[in-house]
């Protein structure tokens, strides 16, 4: 099949690579081929992080400009940074909780108004799904579960190639057992927001 391309972006420490691995393993267990690209190293120290996944027939995990079917952005500015990967048909699941770059006071480019960011995203595609993943994660009991809130939101996207049960199975293989209950609740809360 034509690959389904997922671009995931956010800030180091938000659980982006873990989320990507869960999607990848769930897709493989569903029977798809998957390739994924991740960048390690310096990024952990509060820098921007992104991963790219292609589910289906592809050799390279790198998504072309305008080639993402789905953007999962853990932070608004990082959604904006991913703009070149988006097209008018891309679905965008975006956390509206901001994280300032550490040097923003010394930067000659200010952090844009969040409304401006969402206007920019909407001008590319109308398929924008915004949620406050931080608040939801806190309400289910642990801010660290915000990545599963985001994944829950992504699960509600039409055409998302993997079903919720497969995701939960992959979560069991990748998350500490004692946090599983909270993480599944986080997933469900994120999903509930957008599922019809």
């Amino acid at each position, binding site marked *: 099949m034509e690959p389904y391309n997922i671009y995931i972006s956010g800030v180091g420490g938000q659980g982006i690579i873990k989320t990507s691995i869960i999607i990848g393993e769930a897709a493989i267990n569903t029977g798809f081929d998957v*390739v994924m690209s991740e960048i*390690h190293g310096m990024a952990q120290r509060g820098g921007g992080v992104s991963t790219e996944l292609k589910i289906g027939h592809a050799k390279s995990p790198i998504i072309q*400009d305008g080639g993402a079917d789905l953007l999962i952005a853990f932070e608004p500015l990082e959604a904006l940074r991913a703009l070149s990967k988006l097209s008018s048909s891309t679905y965008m699941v975006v956390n509206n909780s901001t994280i300032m770059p550490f040097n923003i006071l010394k930067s000659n480019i200010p*952090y844009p108004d969040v409304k401006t960011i969402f206007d920019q995203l909407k001008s590319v595609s109308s398929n924008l799904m915004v949620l406050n993943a931080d608040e939801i994660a806190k309400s289910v009991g642990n801010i660290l579960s915000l990545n599963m809130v985001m994944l829950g939101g992504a699960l509600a996207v039409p055409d998302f190639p993997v079903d919720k049960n497969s995701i939960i199975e992959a979560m069991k293989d990748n998350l500490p057992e004692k946090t599983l209950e909270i993480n599944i609740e986080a997933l469900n809360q994120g999903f509930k927001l957008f599922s019809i």
Partner: protein
Amino acid sequence: MNIEKVLTGEKDEKLFLLGNEATVRGALESGVQVAATYPGTPSSEIGDVFSKIAKQAGVYFEFSINEKVAMEVAAAASASGLRSFTFMKHVGLNVASDSFMSLVYTGVNGGMVVLSADDPSMFSSQNEQDNRNYARLANLPMLEPSNPQEIKDLMKYGFELSEKFKLPVMIRTTTRVSHMRGMVKFDTVNRKKEKGFFHRDPERFVPVPETARIMHKELVEKMEKIKDKSENSVYNKIYNNDADIGIITSGSAFNYVMDILDQHKIKANVLKVTFSYPFPEKLVLKFLKSVKDIVVVEEVDPVMEKEVLTILGKYGIKRNVHGKLDGTLPMIYEYSPDIIVNSFNKIYEPKIPRNKVFKSKVRVPKRPPTLCPGCPHRAVYYNIKTVLDDLNIKDPIYPTDIGCYTLGIEAPYESADYLLSMGSSIGTSCGFSKATNQVVISFIGDSTFFHAGIPPLINAVHNKNNFLLVILDNRTTAMTGGQPHPGLPVDGMGDAAPEISIEKIVKATGVQNIKTINPLNIRTSREIFKEALEYQGVSVVISKYPCMLIKNQFKKKQIKLEVKENKCRECLYCLENLACPAIFLSDNGSVKIDGLQCKGCTVCKQICPEQVIKVRK
């Protein structure tokens, strides 16, 4: 996935593995017995996986003090008949190269694979050197995988080839292959004998001029035979579509090429060069003859392109060759599918359609990586900067080194002025202290000090230099993910190990003025830095405090800080001088501390001019 699966996974099992994880599986299936490395991204996770499973696998694994030692450990194991593996980032091979260059002369007994993980576009490196050149410089076989499955397969083939020809084999990956995740199908793990035996044979293993001359001749003869192997290798594959255009490609670039051809139904013949050195001349010649036009798609240096031009010249054949040298493809950085499309569109019609590219109408501020909240380095930078102000010292020079503290390059720290390689902070401090009258303050981490900092420090003392060296001992190799080093009481397999004292080493080099500080104690640290800066000669301050990312260090109750309500006058001194990610300006303009991010280091509390930061109740 539990990482132990890399060892326990059974034959025919398929797992979603990182290239670096597949590397370990390939070594285990090959019956590797000794593995050694110094951590370096993009190869770091290979060591991390070995570190977790080596004991259970019956493999000896170590984090060596540097890449040269890692190379030597593996070489000796191989000379003793064991299969050995050493792996490192591309610049690590520079460190190991002295021994590496002779190792190809002596050859090996047990199969030995040397993996170099190159970093095109420099995601986490100081340069993007193309280590395919090392295969030519040293003269040894090279294999270039394109995905995790291929890494695993080529590890096995590499060991076999090495053992057959008694020569180390080099595998070159790039960031996009080492950090690519894909499905890998397992074979059986192969366990071999645990101890080898070294049969002495000085004519083979001691390259002095008389023996080395013979060894070099034998090396050339071996490589002549190995050329047959690359000519006929199943890993060098022609995808023949009866086209006029022929594309020669390798590694990650092969993936981009195939996806673009496939997606846009473009007809071209493709030669994937995987067994890339000795360059398969006859195979390439046959391929060149079968097409009218050639495009060479390879990352970083025009290595294959020059080989192709040589072959065309040698056989007097005329073909158009497109690549880096004629400007069709970029000369530097990694490629991407978009770069392939743009390049093809320069030379061929009809043009490949491109997606519409959206650009943000507002400017997007950068988000560079930074020191973590609670990072002890931040306090060191703050202390030194303020002490320099107090002493009215202008134009200091900050030679720095490889590690998290390189992040000191950013404002407000701006404490990174000169950097070449591991250990260069101290060597270049020697030069700056002789060449200028400026104050020289040099930074090096604990792991980097062990790796390459000791000889230059001896040099500094012996040659009567004058500078301050700050050893940032955060009790781990932090930047690459927290690997142990000789200064810690644990080794690469998780066993207890003698802890080598940095302070005693510094003393032994002859440094007279040595102080150890807790950098989070601002007042005392500043006093000690003041004294050290007033000292004539080499003085060393060891800043000892563990990295905030080390797990389980906060077993005792962790404190958090907060700004006293309505007391802060928003002078922003803390924000501007510490730039701690936990301190932020809220929407109403007041200074706040994020309780989730705060690690309770208390530096902000100590430096607040208004004394309005307190411990959270």
